């Protein structure tokens, strides 16, 4: 012990192992406090005050903003749209991501190149994604009408982004952007499934579908949870894409909750209301992700491995929640 300690002291500028560890962890903690914790506390404080930017005055109003938000039909509407957008995005990107991963897990010529290319949409920023999709669905110069109108399938200047359809188009654009990330996670998980399990299952007369549900899915269950959480949080706070694509329009048909918060802040300068709304957003995101977590690890008493994985995931879920 003494010898090992002496060596450690020698190698790390006179620090013992635990001093070294504390220094490293301390620095990160300090950074997190400055960048995350302090703004959170400050915004919590703001949410309790009414601010008048012209008179540069503020006075304490307590929970008034929260009460006002919950009674406001615009807020309820925005949350509904957010949930709708999130639901479409999560379901589609999970299915498409898993589908892509399953295909890319099979050997075929050109698989290496395709694996690299498939991740590209995720590397493209959400604003660029939105711009690209505008070029596709725009009624006058959009690519979709450019192809379909001459064929007589749609009328010229057909408006894809109608009040009813717009939410689906932004969701599709978002899925195009985020599904490759899911595919990436799923592919990594698929490669850890031992090949002998599939061989054993074939000997046991399990067909392709049975093999997927009895071997593949249980094996990648926790990666599914991670992807669910990531995509949900990304969709629920998905400001960039929506702002660049539709700005909430037409009307308020795509005005998701983060867009409303943006308007409170930068158009109406209602900082107290905006921060209160942000807390509402965090709350909803946390409820969603915690629900997944509980549902997917429901039968956790069965295996020790789940117990080991579950607490490891909890901080990740919390961290995703905090990013909102």
């Amino acid at each position, binding site marked *: 012990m003494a010898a090992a300690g002496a060596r450690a002291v020698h190698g790390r500028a006179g620090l013992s192992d635990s001093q070294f560890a504390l220094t490293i962890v301390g620095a990160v903690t300090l950074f997190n406090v400055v960048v995350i914790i302090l703004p959170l506390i400050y915004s919590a404080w703001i949410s309790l005050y009414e601010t008048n930017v012209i008179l540069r005055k503020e006075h304490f109003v307590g929970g008034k903003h929260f009460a006002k938000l919950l009674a406001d039909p615009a807020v309820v509407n925005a949350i509904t749209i957010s949930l709708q957008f999130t639901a479409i995005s999560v379901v589609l990107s999970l299915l498409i991501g898993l589908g892509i991963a399953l295909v890319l897990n099979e050997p075929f010529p050109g698989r290496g190149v395709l694996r690299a290319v498939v991740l590209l949409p995720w590397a493209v920023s959400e604003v660029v994604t939105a711009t690209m999709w505008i070029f596709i669905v725009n009624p006058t110069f959009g690519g979709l009408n450019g192809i379909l109108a001459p064929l007589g399938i749609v009328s010229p200047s057909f408006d894809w982004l109608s009040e009813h359809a717009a939410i689906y188009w932004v969701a599709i654009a978002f899925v195009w952007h985020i599904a490759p990330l899911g595919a990436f996670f799923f592919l990594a998980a698929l490669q850890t499934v*031992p090949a*002998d*399990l599939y*061989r*054993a*299952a*074939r*000997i*046991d*007369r*399990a*067909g392709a579908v*049975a093999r997927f549900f*009895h*071997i593949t899915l*249980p*094996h990648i269950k926790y990666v599914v949870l991670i992807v669910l959480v990531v995509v949900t949080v990304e969709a629920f706070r998905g400001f960039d894409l929506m702002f660049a694509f539709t700005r909430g329009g037409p009307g308020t048909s795509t005005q998701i909750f983060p867009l409303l918060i943006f308007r409170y802040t930068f158009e109406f300068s209602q900082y107290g209301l905006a921060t209160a709304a942000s807390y509402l957003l965090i709350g909803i995101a946390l409820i969603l992700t915690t629900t997944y977590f509980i549902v997917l690890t429901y039968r956790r008493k*069965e*295996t*020790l*491995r789940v117990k080991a994985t579950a607490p490891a995931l909890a901080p990740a879920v919390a961290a995703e929640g905090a990013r909102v």
Partner: protein
Amino acid sequence: MSAVTIDNVMKTYGDVVAVDSLTLEINNKEFVVLLGPSGCGKTTTLNMIAGLDVPTSGHIRFDGESVEHLPPEKRDISMVFQSIALYPHKSVYENIAFPLRMARGPKREIDSRVRSAAGLLRIEALLDRKPHQLSGGQRQRVALGRAVVRDPSVFLFDEPLSALDAKLRVDMRVEIKKLHERLGATFVYVTHDQVEALTMADRIAVIDGGRLQQYATPDEIYQRPANLIVAKFVGSPSMNFVPGRLIESAGKWRFAGEGLEVSLPEGLLDDPHRSGRSELILGIRPERAALGGTADGTGWVYATEPVGSDLFVDVTFDGPDTIDPRLFKIRTRPDLRLRSGEQVAVTLPLEHLYFFEPDGRRLWPRDGAA
């Protein structure tokens, strides 16, 4: 129950020939071990019987019916894997029941068959556990249970014991042998462990380089190896080999190797000239050579290896002080005391000698001779 026929089967991967014109008849209810070093093609052969691999050419027949293009699920087989390959998310019960569930059997029948398979392998107490809560030996039993429950006509084993420790391996060997007796099914068992092969098999197929070297009973394989490859691979410690040549003087034939000379009675080797080639290789098992006696050669003790019941003496004929000697092993009494460097006489009884051609074919004992 099925007889399995492997008829002139080839399997190539690109330019690599994994299995080369292999022909093998496995009788109904027979326990056949495919024995060979790693990469010899024995597992590929097993996979082709299972349907996990398709032969490049040739036929695989179950009871005379070609199955080489049938997928595994259409063949009446079970398989136990080297990696054991239990389904990690399922309980022991679910693991064993899985093949029956896939066949959509009635629930009550599944339950009774799972319980009787568990009883056969003495794992009833483990049915609610998950694979990761089991020891290596218990997992292997569960894997056997999953294979047994279907009551297939052919059981395939791919080195099922290689992941177990030595003690457990010996126990499981007996267990699998008893299982074969009780089930009366055809067993095809792949291993690189010649002790497993000798203890369990009705017949052993020694495979090397994708080719069948010998296919015979364990006794035949041990007593009359078809060639140098089989002689080297079967037996532990391995047979001693001494390269040398035939010499004639005064009408008598002798074999002269390094440090050894053996007088051959007439008729031992039919045509000693063999069109002018006199090189051949002498072989003798460590338990057949002896220290002392008539002294066919004189060597030096290089090292001794006591193993409790026996003492193995490593003798070198290269001189007392050689750095990298060729060793000749002799099994002897455990109470013999020998020093390194001590000079010893070595005797090779004629009736236990083997002679091989330089190309590996066995020359003596002759085929057919008792």
